[in-house]
């Protein structure tokens, strides 16, 4: 357990993970469930346990679509997407932690791709 990282994720997300009652509704409603190694409810309890580095190394942090379905549908107001965001930021803020670099962008473009997709992806995947 990494106390420092846990503290950082809790502060950055502003989430009280102790409010979670493990009902799993967040994961049940998550559009990326099948693509994730760790699911939203697991993010919440792994952060509670301080097991942050496992999450930071997982591709799951890049699968969250930030659709806020888990945020709105959680019966306890836990806001799991904010935990995922805080863990992802902890990962991409590290030296060489960027998941997407501007050099990769040209090869990902097509004539219809809206600019919105690029700026959003750069926000989510790089610092």
């Amino acid at each position, binding site marked *: 357990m990494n106390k420092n990282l846990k503290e950082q994720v809790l502060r950055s*997300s502003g989430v009280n993970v102790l409010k979670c009652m493990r009902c799993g509704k967040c994961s049940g409603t998550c559009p990326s469930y099948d693509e994730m190694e760790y699911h939203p409810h697991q993010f919440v309890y792994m952060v509670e346990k301080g097991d942050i580095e496992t999450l930071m190394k997982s591709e799951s942090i890049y699968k969250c*679509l930030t659709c806020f379905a888990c945020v709105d549908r959680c019966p306890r107001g836990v806001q799991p997407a904010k935990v995922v965001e805080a863990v992802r930021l902890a990962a991409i803020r590290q030296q060489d932690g960027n998941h997407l670099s501007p050099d990769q962008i040209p090869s990902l473009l097509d004539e219809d791709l809206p600019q*919105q997709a690029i700026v959003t*992806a750069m*926000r989510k995947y790089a610092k």
Partner: protein
Amino acid sequence: MRSSTRRKWYNIRKDCKLMETFTYYPGCTLRTKAKDLDAYARASAEALGIALEEPADWQCCGGAYTTAKDEIATKLSAVRTLNAAKEQGRALITVCSACHNVIKQTNYDISRDEEMAAKVNNYLQLPEAYTGETTVYHYLEMLRDVVGFDKLKEKVVAPLKGVKIAAYYGCLLLRPSAALAMDDPENPTIMEDFIRAIGATPVIYAQRNECCGGYITLEDKSQAAKRSGAVMESAKDQGADMIITACPLCLYNLRKNSGSDLPVYYFTEILAQALGLKEGNNE
């Protein structure tokens, strides 16, 4: 101030209100890949007696709101837009779902989180601190709350009679509902009411407020295909003739990644069509 001067100012302000001028934030994509969303929004507003004025030197909203409390720089451009409207003494109108989401979430948080407000204002050094004073409307909210769907109905010259339209909300228009405060996040009606106002028939389907995949199209095409395919299939199953959206990225995913042939349009295109400002789509 002398009372005659005061009366004069009062009348000017009243006139301004009658003209219904709003600060309008188009955002980066409406300048480039989503010109139709923008052009038909402007033309229709004019026909409805709404003046839209862009603030000077606006910047991209960033595309996504960073919910982290220790992110400040990524929120500044949205605050600049909100403050521009405040300085003009007007409400702010957005039309792209993503811009709308970023700007409303920023406004919600800055009005409630004192530490965020302090940090943002330390950066921006505005003549007067910004703490969430501006009212933000999505274009659809403007149609509902300023124009009124009844009045819109009266202005329709080419009703889309018999056309079955599936409204696609996606995620960004509705959630998080505490900040967006636009409609019931699980049973929204604003787009269906809009569809009725222009003479068409709304189609209700299960996936209307689920995610299209969004920016994952850059990371994982198969996931974008799966999500957008589910949305299109759900709308088609309920007998829709077309889908409408307010979001350029939703439109992209639904058109290009879904593998479906169901037509997808911006809601402003069919609004302009109903108002007689655009030729019909050849379906």
